[in-house]
């Protein structure tokens, strides 16, 4: 049975999962969830994702939510096809540890701040609410500090976990693109190593396939 992705076409977390499905050549059926109608809060949805969020998958009866968990599951289950090594093999304990270090950093040092910016400058504005400029400034200040560290890391290695591309790099893309949409692309563009790394990620066919919205591939 084809894997089903219950998601919203432009939700950052949904895009995160769709990209991994493309990277590992996993055909999937996209079932759109209407966020404006709050479909994700209805009983039919919360039965599968009790936090009332998108996305979740149904892989032949195996239901999973949390985009980063889903991405990991796909990368492990389909490790033999498409892009190799998106998670280092568990037999290489040090490589796996360095991946986990980068993956933890992605959320704690990047998403935490980038998500605040996206929420204040994109999401709230779309719904007609005022932007809290103080929150935005605080997040920008934090990102400046964190991306300076990224600049140093990426001076010494091509990807955040080491020499190879992993999920830790890919997971930055959805909110990274939202920084550009918020008019703050300079946070990335002003740092040569970060810009090179990020632009290479954006050029990947897996991102090009979904950047304007997720569609079924099965």
């Amino acid at each position: 049975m084809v894997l089903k992705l219950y998601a919203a076409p432009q939700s950052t977390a949904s895009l995160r999962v769709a990209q991994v499905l493309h990277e590992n050549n996993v055909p999937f059926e996209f079932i759109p969830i209407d966020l404006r109608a709050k479909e994700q809060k209805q009983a039919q949805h919360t039965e599968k994702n009790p936090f009332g969020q998108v996305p979740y998958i149904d892989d032949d009866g195996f239901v999973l939510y949390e985009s980063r968990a889903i991405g990991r599951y796909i990368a492990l289950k389909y490790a033999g096809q498409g892009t190799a090594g998106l998670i280092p093999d568990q037999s290489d304990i040090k490589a796996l540890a360095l991946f986990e270090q980068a993956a933890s950093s992605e959320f704690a040092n990047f998403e935490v701040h980038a998500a605040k910016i996206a929420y204040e400058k994109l999401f709230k504005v779309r719904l007609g609410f005022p932007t809290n400029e103080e929150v935005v400034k605080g997040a920008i200040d934090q990102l400046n500090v964190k991306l300076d560290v990224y600049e140093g890391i990426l001076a010494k290695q091509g990807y955040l976990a080491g020499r190879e591309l992993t999920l830790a790099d890919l997971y930055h893309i959805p909110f990274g693109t939202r920084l550009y949409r918020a008019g703050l692309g300079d946070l990335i563009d002003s740092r040569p190593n970060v810009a090179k790394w990020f632009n290479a990620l954006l050029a990947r066919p897996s991102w090009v396939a979904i950047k304007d919205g997720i569609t079924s591939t099965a």
Partner: protein
Amino acid sequence: MVLKLYGWPKSTCTQRVGMALIEKGVPFEFVMVDLFKGESKTPEYLQKQPFGQVPYIDDDGFTLYESRAIARYIAEKYAAKGTPNLLPIADVRARARFEQAASVEVADFDAFAGRAVFEMVFKPMMGGKSDEAVFQDLITSLSAKLDVYDKILAKQKYMAGNVSLLPLPLPSHPSSSYSTRNKRKLTKRPQEITLADLFHLPYGVLLSTAGSDIMQAKPNVKRWFDDLQSRPSWQAVKDGVKSTV
């Protein structure tokens, strides 16, 4: 060479690593990094932890930072020691359930509990002024998330659910002499604790210091959290991480 844990004794993230080391029975030397003297921002320190934070470990020359990454590394390296299956990576589905719970801890618990504790406990320590309204907002959001936790924990003992290492029981043979009760024993799998549960402790415990009893307010969350707090690994680090060698 004994593993070295560089951190601050009562730093939540340092405690998270200390707990994992003790659960796995891994001896370690605790090296104090004096945050108030700026020791985590020196050029030497930044060579090891470029974000200038605590903790990091030095395991015979291999350095690693991010407390959850360190705990995962220890759980995997010492899989055969101490508390079993803290990082259930043997089976794709068990691992996925673990990752789901681990992601929930970061995005749905730490995101609110961490900031709430910072507002009331750490901010004043750094010379800032607590904002009660910000705190209450965060607790309201956390409470909504813990309502979901309560539903999940009504059906399973720990947050990752079924991650057992036991193989699936053989399908019962029609001529099997096993009684129905034995068959039920074969198919029942233990509900195992994982890192996803333990990661909640440091900030979870500080919520009451911050002024919220939210961890006691929902019956299954209370049962689960009281159980976590009683573990020897938490008792050993709750007043500050110390060397075990």
